[in-house]
């Protein structure tokens, strides 16, 4: 009996729509099992059933050979199954130690005793986290460590990770991989969901691929190649490399200078950044998390304000500007397409057509302008077609769409404003493989049409695939600039890290 967890013919449906159906999935004792698939394939739902967040609709789940149905995450944890969440589940205003023992405190607690026990636990795992530090002061990687320590504290033998490396820097990723190895030797079984195929190939023992709610294949990781995984994920023969190989194409010539930041500063996030963006080409901005790329572009788009004193200058088409609110930037032809659709991209209670039309509507000035839903549908239809937004129903709410289609709606909402400077912040984050290619080709079209396009991305292959010119940000500055012809991965990483 080497399977610690087994799903037999399992189905989970939400209101009749199956998130996954007839899935057989096994997790062996002490293995690292990667779950791969496009967004909407059912990976997260499968692991959430295992972690006790949802019950199965049909089929059964065996834990150590016994059929079980967990009523709650606590119930799952009692049987040794813990999930480490994408958005961490810690309480930011409490200390690390308090978080570690959350829910199992004695009636009276001595903070000192709790801290000592926490210290022992953390040291045993060789996590360098101060037990008395507030969780809110920790970075993503350390928060993850605390979550893992908390799960192990409760004697979890099965750990589930959902996109564990998404928020980590390359260095932290290496630590994380080492940690996975160590957990494995301690006898933990690990399920992890990832969009990074190389990671899965590197650290998983076995890989399962889900597509449209069905488990397409489960096999030893050694039997997979990148091409085979992508093919299984999308179910069609893509050209193996979705992203073009480096330096394959020639850079477009730079047009007129559209945006220039000169010694722009904002608090500690942006420190004297200087950069330019030209019409008719794509400027890729690479940098590690926290390099200040997003902040620089948000200043250009009027969402953040640069320092009032010694804040430097921002020039748009040669004229110095200081935008008080995003509205002013929009009326001057600047569009910022957010990296976080849920936070400041989508209007979740409105339909697709309305979401897109809102962009055009709000650019105007007169509040008494008369609008109708049919007008909104008409105006949006063009963009739905141009960006190939696919929907279940015409009047579907945006929350019912897949990540890729949601992203296209957000893009359409900005493009309908006819901007000349278009800033994409992580345009393919949480987007399925098929939609990535479509979004990339849209970006190229914009540049071909003479638009000044900026793409912020933390993913090097993406930067190589679409940029004509590459800027590298580090610690609030632009530290390196190169054209696509002279760029190599090593050069970029060297500039970003050192």
């Amino acid at each position: 009996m080497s399977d610690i967890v087994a799903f037999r013919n399992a189905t989970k449906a939400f209101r009749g729509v199956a998130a996954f159906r007839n899935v057989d999935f096994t997790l062996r004792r002490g293995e690292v099992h990667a779950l791969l698939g496009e967004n909407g394939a059912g990976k997260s739902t499968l692991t959430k059933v295992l972690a006790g967040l949802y019950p199965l609709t049909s089929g059964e789940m065996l834990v150590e050979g016994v059929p079980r149905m967990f009523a709650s995450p606590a119930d799952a944890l009692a049987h040794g199954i813990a999930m480490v969440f994408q958005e961490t589940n810690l309480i930011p205003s409490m200390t690390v130690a308090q978080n570690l023992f959350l829910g199992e405190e004695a009636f009276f607690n001595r903070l000192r005793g709790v801290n000592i026990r926490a210290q022992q636990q953390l040291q045993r795992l060789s996590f360098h986290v101060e037990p008395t530090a507030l969780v809110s002061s920790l970075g993503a990687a350390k928060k993850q460590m605390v979550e893992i320590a908390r799960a192990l504290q409760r004697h979890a033998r099965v750990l589930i990770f959902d996109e564990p490396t998404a928020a980590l820097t390359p260095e932290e990723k290496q630590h994380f991989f080492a940690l996975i190895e160590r957990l494995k030797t301690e006898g933990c079984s690990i399920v992890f969901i990832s969009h990074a195929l190389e990671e899965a190939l590197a650290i998983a023992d076995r890989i399962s691929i889900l597509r449209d709610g069905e488990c397409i294949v489960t096999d030893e990781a050694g039997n997979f190649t990148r091409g085979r995984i992508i093919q299984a994920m999308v179910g069609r023969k893509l050209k193996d490399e979705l992203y073009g190989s480096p330096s394959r194409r020639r850079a477009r010539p730079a047009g007129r200078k559209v945006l220039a930041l000169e010694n722009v500063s904002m608090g500690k996030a942006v420190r004297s950044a200087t950069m330019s963006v030209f019409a008719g080409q794509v400027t890729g901005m690479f940098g590690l998390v926290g390099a200040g790329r997003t902040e620089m572009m948000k200043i250009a788009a009027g969402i953040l304000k640069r320092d009032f004193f010694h804040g430097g200058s921002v020039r748009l088409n040669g004229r110095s500007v200081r935008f008080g609110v995003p509205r002013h930037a929009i009326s001057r032809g600047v569009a910022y397409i957010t990296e976080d659709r849920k936070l400041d991209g989508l209007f979740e209670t409105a339909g697709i057509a309305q979401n897109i039309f809102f962009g055009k509507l709000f650019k105007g000035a007169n509040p008494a302008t008369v609008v109708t839903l049919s007008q909104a549908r008409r105006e949006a239809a063009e963009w739905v077609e141009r960006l190939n937004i696919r929907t279940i129903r015409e009047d579907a709410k945006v929350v019912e769409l897949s990540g890729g289609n949601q992203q296209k709606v957000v893009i359409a909402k900005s493009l309908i404003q006819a901007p000349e400077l278009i800033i994409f912040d992580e345009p393919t984050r949480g987007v399925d493989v098929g939609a990535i290619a479509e979004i990339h080709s849209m970006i190229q079209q914009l540049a071909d049409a003479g638009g000044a396009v900026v793409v912020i991305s933390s993913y090097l292959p993406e930067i190589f695939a679409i940029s004509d010119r590459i800027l590298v940000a580090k610690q609030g500055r632009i530290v390196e600039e190169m054209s696509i012809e002279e760029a190599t991965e090593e050069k970029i990483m060297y500039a970003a890290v050192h």
Partner: protein
Amino acid sequence: MARPAIIRKDDRPPFHARLLRSQEGIVFSLAVLAFVLFAILLPGFLSTGNLLVLVRSVSILGILALGMALVVIARGIDVSMIATMVVSVSWAFVITRAGYSFELALLIGAVFAIAAGVIIGVLIAFGDVPPIFATLAAGSVIYGTGRTFFFTLEMQNVPPDTDWFSVIGQGNVLGIPTTVVFFAVLCGLFHLVLSRTRFGWMLYAMGSNPNAARVTGVPFRPMTVAQYAISAFVAYLAGLILASSAAAINARLFNSTMIYDILLVVVLGGIGLNGGHGSVRNVVLGTVFVGILLNGMTILNIDYTVQNLVKGIVLLLAIVVDSIVNPRDEQTSQQGDL
């Protein structure tokens, strides 16, 4: 994506099932049920006189709820409406007695109400004060200012020699009470504004996702100020109609549960306090249901305290039923990474 194709007509649940799946449908059914029950059980309920009283009293509540709905759709709340209403109207009456012409006094009252709304709006838009606290505190300030500086008597009668004024609240147009006509006209106006103008669509966008609205180019602060100015002005209009129909306005309304009745109408009608959805239809529905309920209980001669208890329970039930019928969807909140 192999998702189910377009849902065909005959796949949809039957009408009665769909009716009971939405909060609107439930409230509508309850309103009809209450009406039929009262009509059968209460002898005086269906009399013309009583129905007139019902629609008249309900209209004022409905007008106030329209102003509240506008703010709630944009994810705000205005609990200062009653204070604005009683103080601005009372003050208009007081200065008429002091020698101003009645028309000028009414204008001053309107200016006062709008100014109060603008100040509240500025506090919320520029001071980042949460709307519930800003309006709660502002309501006390407005009422306190009124009672301290503008007038001392609680009861302010409509000034003499203003016959035309009584028409607003007591007259009839083609047999329909003018209060109802006012309510209907305002409903039409609000419906047009909310569903057909850029202003209205901006309100929905602000309620749906304030961050996205700002980034998309909504003039966020001016819009916020405008909302509270409008709700204050609507409160003033409702106050005039109320004063006209009762020939006086009573400042003690500020201490009554009226503001909760307004919220009851808005929430019960199905305009979620989270903003971004709901329409005039929801206000009308909520108004009718609350009106029938209050009128029936009054005829039954139920004690005022017990009436409040019933209203409270209905409000709680509405919220609970809403969250059962429209659960915080396990799927919708997680859609991106199923």
